[in-house]
Every structure is written in C-alpha cells, then in structure tokens.
C-alpha cells in the first residue's frame, strides 16, 4: 500500500514536470520565434535568397537505368539510383526541381537544407532564421502570409483593413527634441530680428520725417519772426493780439506741437545771439504766441528729455509763473531734470538764500557746480546772496561748493565763518578752506591748521604745507622741521623742505651743511636745481 502510494506520488510529480516542461517550452518558442517548423516552407517560398542558406534536392529513381544528368543532377557514388542536385539558392527553385523530378520519373525526392555548406535539419534552419531576425538581418515583415490561396479572398481581407501607409511622411528631424529646440531658438531669433528691423525702420522713418518737417518749419519761422522783430514801430508789437500774430504764420501751423517746438528753439537761439531790446521783443513774441503754455505743458510729460526741454525753455524765457512747478523737480532722481530745475530756480526764483541748492540731497558733480557757479555769479551782481544755508547744508558736496564760491566770488567777509567751520569740517571742506586761506592770505586761520598735520590724509597734509609755505611764521618753520624728521614719505618731505626754503632759506643752508641721508641730499639737489625747483 505504501509502495503504491509512493508510486502514485512519483507518477503525479513526473506528470506535473512533463506538463510544465511542455507548457513552458511551447510558450518560450511562441515568445522567441515567429517562425515554426511547420511554417518554414511557406516562409521560404516567400523570401528571396537568405544569406548562408542553400538547398539541395535528393532523388531516388525506381530503376537503375534512369539517367538524370540532363537535369544537372549527379549520381551518388555508392548507389546507382540515388541522385542529388547542385546547391540551389532559392527554395522555390529547389521545390520546382523536386516536383519536376517526381512527375517525370515517379521516384521519391526530398529537399534538404545547407547552412554554410553543411547539411542541417529544418529546426536548425528555423533557429538560424530566428537569429537573423533578432539581429535584423532578416525582415519578417517581408514575409507574406500565403495561406490565402485565393487572390479574391486576399483583396476582400485587404478592404476590411483600414489603410495605413507603409512609408509615413515623417521628417526624422521633427522627432528629435534637441533639433526642435534649436529650430525654435533660430525661429525666435529670426522673428526677433525681423521685429527689430521693422521697429528700427519705423523709428528711422519717423525721425527722418521729423527732421524734414523741422527743416521746413524752420524755413517757415524766419519770415514771421523777422517781420515781428524788425517792425518799424516797435510799440506796435505790444499792441498786437495773438490772432494778429498767428495770421503771420501759415494757417494752422501754430497748433502743431513740432512747429511750436521749432519756434521756441529758434527764439531761444536768437535770444542767445541778440542783445539790446531784441531780447525783450523775442520774449514778448514767445509769450504772445502762448508758447510759454507749451513749455509748461512739457513738464507734465513722462519723457525725461521733454521735461528737461520744458525746464530749459522756462529758464531761457524767464517764465516766472512756472517757478512753483519747476520747484517740484529740484530733487528729481534724473540728473538732467534735477540739474536744470535747480539752475532754473536759481535763475528766476529770486530766492537769495540759495535754499534750493542747500536742500540738494544728491552730491553735486563738477559739471553742476560749474553750471550753478555761472548763474550765482550772475545773480550775485543783482543782489546780496545769503550763503550761510550752503555752509549749513547736510550735503557735504554743497558745503564744499559753498566754500568754493567764497574763493571764486571773493567773499572775504565769509572767512570768519569758514574759520569757525574748520574744526568740525570734513577733509574735503578743510582742503577748500585752506585754499581760501591761501587765496586771501588769511593768517588768522593758521592756529587750527597745525593740529591737522597729524592727519593720515596726504592731500590735506600737502595743502597745509602749501598754506604754511605762503602764510607761515617762525613757528611754522619749527613745526615743519619737526614734521620733516617724523615723516618718511618723499613727496611730503620735499614739500616741507620747499616750504621751509621759502620761509627761511638759512635753515636749508644749515641742513645742507649737516648732509642728512640720501633722501635729504636728493631733495636739496632738487630744490637747488633751477628747473626742478619749480616742479
């Protein structure tokens, strides 16, 4: 009983293993190969030459007398009625030969397979073809299912299948992402270039048109302006109404902004080149034609150049009523707007305290200082300006500018204020104050100056030495000689000895006798040299 049960178990196990083997092997074949042994012939019938695969036909005749040499068959050496063909490249040719032999000679023939001249079985050929397919050397798509014997059935089946073109119109470039990105970038670049060229063209043509119109308007201005300026009766200009004046110009032109701009520019240009009562006549023309309104209107525009132009026009034509509007621009972040607004306020506001300048938050550039200096110099002749606000300004550059004004405008009465300022002044202010002392021979200020010889700022030190050279006393000589011993810097020592030489040449003579170090010799040689002593 135990033996029987064991045998049954073994039987079940064997049965299971065999079943699994068969099932799995079948599956594997189905997965790996699209060609089976049974389907091999139909595959071979539908393909051309397969590389490495050849065929040979064997034929056995019913009797010994049959001669098949005429059909290019060879007789086997061991058997008289056994014949074989040459190697054939196409299966169909081999099949046809076999069929012909069977029909003519009533014998039995077979087609055998040769792989690289070696005879193999059908399964060997299937395996070989699978290998070729895996390596893409044999295209299974080219195999046409020839199971449809009837051509009509094939056509019928074809009509049921939706049409899908074998060669799709698909550009390989379009499937490449990098290439697509590159094409997109190039397209963007091209489009951007085209847009830019277009914009440039439009801007250029607008500019060109503006230039042409400006020239035309200029030519139209000359006549009426000359008529108004050189009227035989100057008083008549005062009596003229706007309408009478507008009538002198081409109809409707004074409504065009560009024409007004050209008119204003021409009037300003003439105002600069003319003198005498012509200046007041030009201003009268400007106002009577209400061009001042046009200038004020520009202040509300967004473009900084238009606003600046408006401010300049108001300044040149003395449009005093626009002062409160211009005042809003004195702290503007734009340099040109701010500079011109301050200049205009200084020029036409009649504010003698220079508050607009003292309240400046931005540092003053040299260009601005030059511009403001010219205006202040001009208005200083008209009335007494109060400079103290400049000295009290929170802006260092304004304080420095105020000190510069003292020197350039010859404001000697302000030296006492500068002397008071000196103690708490910055390096730049001190340098400017020293220049003032030097300029006006202000000896009283020297007391505070000596302390600053301790400074680490070389420019300040050299300026102090320069002032002492011109204004110094015997005390100055002693202090300078002490500093000569302390300092090692060549330029400082040179300037000190130069100053001492200027104050008391005898001291230098003593130094010359004692002959100090090489640097001293060098400096003394420098001071004695008639050419170098001025350098």
């Amino acid at each position, binding site marked *: 009983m135990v033996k029987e049960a064991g045998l049954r178990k073994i039987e079940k196990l064997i049965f299971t293993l065999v079943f699994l083997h068969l099932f799995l092997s079948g599956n594997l074949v189905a997965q790996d190969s699209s060609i089976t042994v049974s389907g091999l012939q139909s595959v071979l019938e539908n393909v051309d030459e397969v590389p490495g695969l050849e065929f040979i036909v064997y034929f056995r005749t019913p009797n010994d007398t049959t001669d098949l040499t005429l059909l290019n068959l060879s007789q086997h050496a061991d058997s008289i009625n056994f014949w074989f063909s040459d190697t054939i490249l196409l299966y169909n040719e081999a099949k046809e030969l076999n069929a012909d032999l069977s029909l003519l000679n009533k014998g039995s023939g077979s087609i055998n397979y040769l792989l690289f001249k070696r005879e193999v079985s059908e399964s060997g050929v299937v395996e070989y073809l699978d290998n070729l397919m895996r390596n893409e050397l044999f295209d299974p798509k080219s195999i046409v299912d020839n199971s449809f014997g009837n051509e009509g059935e094939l056509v019928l089946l074809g009509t049921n299948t939706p049409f899908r073109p074998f060669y799709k119109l698909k550009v390989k470039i379009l499937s490449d992402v990098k290439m697509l990105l590159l094409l997109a970038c190039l397209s963007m670049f091209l489009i951007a270039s085209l847009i830019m060229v277009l914009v440039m063209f439009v801007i250029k043509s607008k500019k060109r048109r503006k230039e042409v119109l400006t020239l035309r308007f*200029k030519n139209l201005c*000359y006549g009426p302006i*000359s008529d108004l300026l*050189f009227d035989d009766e100057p008083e008549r200009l005062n009596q003229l109404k706007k309408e009478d004046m507008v009538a002198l110009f081409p109809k409707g032109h004074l409504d065009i902004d560009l024409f007004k701009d050209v008119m204003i520019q021409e009037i300003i240009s003439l105002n600069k080149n003319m003198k005498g009562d012509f200046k007041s006549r030009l201003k009268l023309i400007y106002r009577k034609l209400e061009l001042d309104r046009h200038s004020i209107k520009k202040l509300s525009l967004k473009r900084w150049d238009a606003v600046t132009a408006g401010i300049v026009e108001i300044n040149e034509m003395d449009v005093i009523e626009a002062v409160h509007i211009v005042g809003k621009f004195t702290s503007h972040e734009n340099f040109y707007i701010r500079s011109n607004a301050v200049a205009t306020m200084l020029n036409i506001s009649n504010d003698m305290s220079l508050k607009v300048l003292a309240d400046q938050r931005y540092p003053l550039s040299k260009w601005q200082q030059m511009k403001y200096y010219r205006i202040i110099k001009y208005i200083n002749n008209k009335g007494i300006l109060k400079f103290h606000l400049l000295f009290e300004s929170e802006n260092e550059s304004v304080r420095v500018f105020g000190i510069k004004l003292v020197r350039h405008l010859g404001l000697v009465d302000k030296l006492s204020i500068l002397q008071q300022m000196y103690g708490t002044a910055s390096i730049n202010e001190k340098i400017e104050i020293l220049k003032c002392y030097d300029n006006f021979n202000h000896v009283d200020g020297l007391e505070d100056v000596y302390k600053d010889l301790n400074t680490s700022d070389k420019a300040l030190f050299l300026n102090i030495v320069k002032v002492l050279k011109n204004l110094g006393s015997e005390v100055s000589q002693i202090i300078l000689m002490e500093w000569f011993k302390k300092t090692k810097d060549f330029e400082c020592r040179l300037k000190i000895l130069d100053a001492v030489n200027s104050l008391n040449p005898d001291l230098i003579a003593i130094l010359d006798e004692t002959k100090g170090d090489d640097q001293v010799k060098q400096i003394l040689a420098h001071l004695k040299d008639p050419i170098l002593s001025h350098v």
Partner: protein
Amino acid sequence: MKNVLIIEDDKLISSLVRFKLKKEGYNVTITEDGIAGIDAINLMETDLIITDVMIPFKNGIEIINHAKKVSPKVPIIVLSSLGEEEGTVMEAFNLGVSDFVPKPFNPNELAMRVRRLINN
C-alpha cells in the same frame, strides 16, 4: 543797389541780417559754408562781406585771405563769438578786416556799421 555777401552757417541769424539789410535797401546774398562763400566772392561783385569765423569746409581766415587777394578794397565785417575763437579773431584783424561784431549782437547796430563802411 549795393551788394552785401553774408557767409554764415546759422540760417536764422543770416536770414534776420538779410531781412534787416534788405529793409535798409541792400541787395543781400547768403552762403552757408566756406566753399560757397569763396565761389560767391569770385563770381559776384560785392560791396561788403559779413562773415563768421567758424563755418563749415573753410576757416573764416581762409575766406578773409582770399577776399583780400581778389578784391582788397571790399570791406569785411567779422560776426563771431569773441570768447570762443579769440586767437582766430585777432588773426582776422591782422589780415585787415574792417570791423568786428561780437555775438550776441544788435542787428540795428550791425546795419549801422554796414552803412558806415559802404558809404566810406
């Protein structure tokens, strides 16, 4: 009618001067650059020349030089900014110009000087 030649690149100034001088009864010709100015001196009969010093293509000094060679008796008035070209103006005086009117100028005053020079 006396002929006055103006050599000035600022069209507005030259137009105004012409307007004023025409009113005074002169025949006025304007050229805007040095080359045209020299051509005008060569071709037309001029009684007085008014020239700027800084003009395109030819220096004012070259024009004065040329005018003095071609017609030495024709009076020349230099109309220019003194501050900008002081050396050139001094050179112009040395060449024998009759008068100098600095910019900014009064057109009435200029017309008066023209009248005086032409009448002399």
